[in-house]
């Protein structure tokens, strides 16, 4: 009997989530298969002809294959900045959790402030200019690191607290220098929360729209979210291409998700929840 209720409940849940969560995605996919005339109607209908491949080709070819450049740029920005974020945030979270000094209060305040204070765009651009980083991938990467550090630090600090200090000390006795302790003992043990960080931050950075818009002008520097602008203009809208574009740029996060799906919860377990 219990079994039956669980099956019934499951079926109901599957049906409900299908309507709420899956249908919008099916809609995106259907739109991506339509031609321009049909897509302009924006209805949930079967495509009259399958134009998906044409749409993809058109989207990819637009503006001198900008989509390809954008994918390369976005990948570089995402991979490099997430790598830096993971290492730097873990280092801060580690020392912050382990070493109690009178600076801790200030550091924690700054971290929290970073979570809350909206960034000041124009002064930042000036600064990047002065550092010769404006409009470069390097600059963009550093910006993403700076803006996302607080969240990562908070996750890491909470997780480090769950790793027994004995392990650090055992390593110290074993002759480990601080960098050895961190890279060989602590960082590997932070893997679950690192996965959480990788998933949340890479998705956030890959999907970041506003920051590249400001800090990364120039065709050669386009990112995937900016490609949406090619099709969503003020004057005319090609919905089939727009949705093809949305579909294409959703693929990388989907891959990340499939890759780390099982491990996402584990990282949250000790990380975010004990925060």
């Amino acid at each position, binding site marked *: 009997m219990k079994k039956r209720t669980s099956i019934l409940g499951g079926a109901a849940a599957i049906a409900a989530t299908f309507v709420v969560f899956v249908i919008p995605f099916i*809609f995106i996919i259907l739109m991506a298969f339509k031609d321009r005339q049909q897509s302009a109607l924006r209805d949930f209908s079967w495509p009259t002809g399958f134009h998906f491949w044409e749409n993809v080709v058109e989207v990819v070819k637009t503006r001198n294959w900008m989509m390809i450049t954008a994918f390369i740029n976005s990948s570089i920005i995402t991979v490099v900045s997430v790598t*830096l974020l993971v290492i730097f945030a873990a280092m801060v979270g580690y020392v912050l959790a382990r070493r109690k000094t009178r600076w801790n209060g200030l550091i924690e305040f700054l971290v929290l402030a970073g979570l809350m204070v909206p960034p000041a765009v124009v002064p930042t651009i000036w600064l990047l200019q002065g550092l010769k980083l404006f409009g470069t991938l390097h600059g963009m990467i550093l910006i993403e690191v700076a803006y996302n550090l607080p969240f990562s630090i908070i996750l890491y600090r909470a997780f480090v607290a769950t790793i027994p200090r004995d392990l650090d000390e055992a390593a110290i006795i074993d002759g480990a220098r601080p960098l050895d302790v961190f890279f060989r003992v602590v960082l590997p043990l932070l893997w679950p929360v690192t996965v959480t960080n990788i998933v949340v931050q890479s998705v956030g950075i890959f999907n970041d729209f506003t920051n590249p818009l400001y800090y990364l002008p120039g065709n050669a520097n386009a990112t995937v979210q900016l490609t949406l602008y090619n099709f969503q203009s003020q004057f005319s809208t090609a919905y089939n291409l*727009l949705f093809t574009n949305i579909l294409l740029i959703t693929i990388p996060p989907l891959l990340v998700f499939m890759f780390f799906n099982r491990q996402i*919860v584990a990282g949250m*377990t000790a990380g975010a929840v004990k925060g």
Partner: protein
Amino acid sequence: MSASTMAGTPNRAETRAIKRSPYPGWFFTPAAIIYSVLFLVPTFASLYFSLTRWTLFDSEFIGLENFAQFLREPFLIKGLVNTVIYAAVTSGLKVVVGLLLAVMLTSQIVGRGYLRSVIFFPVLVSTVGVGITFTVLMHPTQGMINETLALFGIAGPGWLTDPNLALYSVALVDVWKGVGLATVIYIAGLVAIPQDYYEAARIDGATPWQNFWYVTLPLCRPATSTVITLSFIGGLRTFDLIWAMTKGGPGFASDTIASVIYKQYQAGFYGLSTAGNVVLFILIALLVVPLTMFLNRKQGHE
């Protein structure tokens, strides 16, 4: 022979330990440099610029006039109220829906893997993409939502075009997109609850409802406070989705502080916009700091 107690000559030659800490402060440096240069410095610079009339090309010091002007903005009060409503509605719904989904997903329900994936997936999709999609779906006459409602003889509202509804529609989409993260946080919180408590409760004859109310709810409070804090701050700062869906409209009906700030920025009122940033920061601090203190104190009491 006899036992010695506290014998020996005191050796006053104190050797200063100059041993280095195993947790060196320089671990902070890479993060600190990036964060200070690219975040703190511009933020402090913006404090100055908020006191100027700034055309980007040159700035003129005008004292607090920007703040006076910003607070005179005809729609600022509405924007303030909207911001708080939006943050409260989204974080509240994420807590309730996220917890319910998490309870469901940690129970012995069929299709758990599917459900978990499907609920989490929207978190990964670009906000702008989601905004565009739902703007289309929520179209008052041709949108799929209202067309479906029409099949049942219900005249759907103008989700994004009715000034009284637009803000809530966007908030719903925000929940749709963000509830997956809340659910995952809750799942993590729930699996961390030792089974002993449930067993003890079962022996005490607790109903499933009592189980939820007296065991699950109190014991996943850390998860709750994480969800609330993250989504509340996110809600106060929210911009992408509102901008992608309504641009603060119709008229000014779904303006939040962030969108008001952005419009000032767009119009070229950089000093004014920067002053708005400062106002937003103050609002966040005023709401979030007491909120976190409240959540943490409650935690301490357990």
